[in-house]
């Protein structure tokens, strides 16, 4: 069960990375300044989780 938990946890980190990348992709593609600012704000918790800070 410890192994299963660990695998699930790494899958969640993979999901976090996927969404983090999706946010960065949208940040690059967007034509609206307001959306760009919003994407940057949304990105912060994903970065902090991937770096295992929060």
């Amino acid at each position, binding site marked *: *069960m410890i192994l299963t938990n660990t695998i699930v946890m790494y899958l969640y980190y993979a999901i976090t990375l996927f969404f983090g990348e999706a946010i960065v992709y949208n940040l690059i593609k967007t034509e609206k300044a307001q959306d760009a*600012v919003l994407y940057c704000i949304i*990105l912060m918790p994903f*970065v902090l989780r991937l770096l295992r*800070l*929060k």
Partner: protein
Amino acid sequence: MKNNLKIIKIISLVIALAFAAIAGRDFYEHRHFMEPVVPSPSLTEVKKLSDYEPSLKGTVNDSNVYVFDSGVPGGTALLIGGSHPEEPAANLTASLVAENVKVEQGRLFVIIRSNRSASTCTRMGEAYPDFYHVKTPWGIKRFRMGDRCTNPLDSWPDPEVYLHYPSRQMLAYMDIRNLNRTWPGRPNGAITERTTWAMTQLIRREKVDMAVDLHEAELEYPVENTIVTHEKGQSVAAMTSMVLTAELFEVPLSMEFSPQALHGLSHREIGDHTDAMSLLVEVAEPMIDRIRGITDEYLLMTGRDEFVMKAGEHKLLYAPIDERGWPIDVRVGRHSSTFQKMLEFYSLEAPDRAVIISGVPGYTEVIENTLGTYFHDPKQAPPEKVFYD
């Protein structure tokens, strides 16, 4: 226009990453700060929780277990602090005991930070301070403020519903990270379950007679200023409650039984799954009341809050509160005297398994002299006598 957008994107990203870096530095410092402990000369050994559950070795919850053995045959007691690190009187009392105790008969085990992981983050969305400070004669002693539950960095994700083991009772999802919902634990569960399993194994292997788990509670919660006891501990709890209420405490200390159908709590599961009697002690902590005002170190240490007082005026609380609040010295003093009185009555009840201690300041001493007076300077102690939690 396109160039302007590009500049806005770059500036926004730089600002966001700068904020993340500033916050990240604080989170990192909080998670990696080590609290020095200078145990009393009665210390005989420092064990680790991984001595009882090897899978904890090298993890954040491989907490220190301070062992004080008098060498005189008697019983064994376990004091558990830090089950919920957002309730600081618990780990502070365990520290106070570890730094001052003299064991005259039997053995005493003290765990100051039973859920270390939960002390490495604060509760999300609550704006708790990261640290709190206790003034001592030699300077300021710093402690980590914590959360109720294990840090998600150490246990993630939570299940949709937490199925308590072995009862299979359904509990709230986050309670899989709540140390006082995962007793008696299991060796192959999540880290919080393995932590309680390690303590269950400690209780079994070391033949602990009495386990005391220290807590604090919001004044809006009915289980307040009380001892919650397993059936095995009823006489010890009743005597302690009566004597301290009659002779010492300004606010009565009540007593109640552990509900038989509510699982995962120390007062129920330790008693059911080991030979030890289990008791849990609560004291009032206004900082965790829902109705509180600014949540800062002042409130944490003084327990003074005008909103909680107002709720008291409207009879919405289960404990009294006035402009004096619930200072940390009062909360720690109550816990200290309660634990000592429990040991006293247990020792009277089972003289062949007695645990007799001295040297620990109680309610009157802590209030008169302040808590910090009783902490020792780690810089003045030999390095091999200083341990870190």
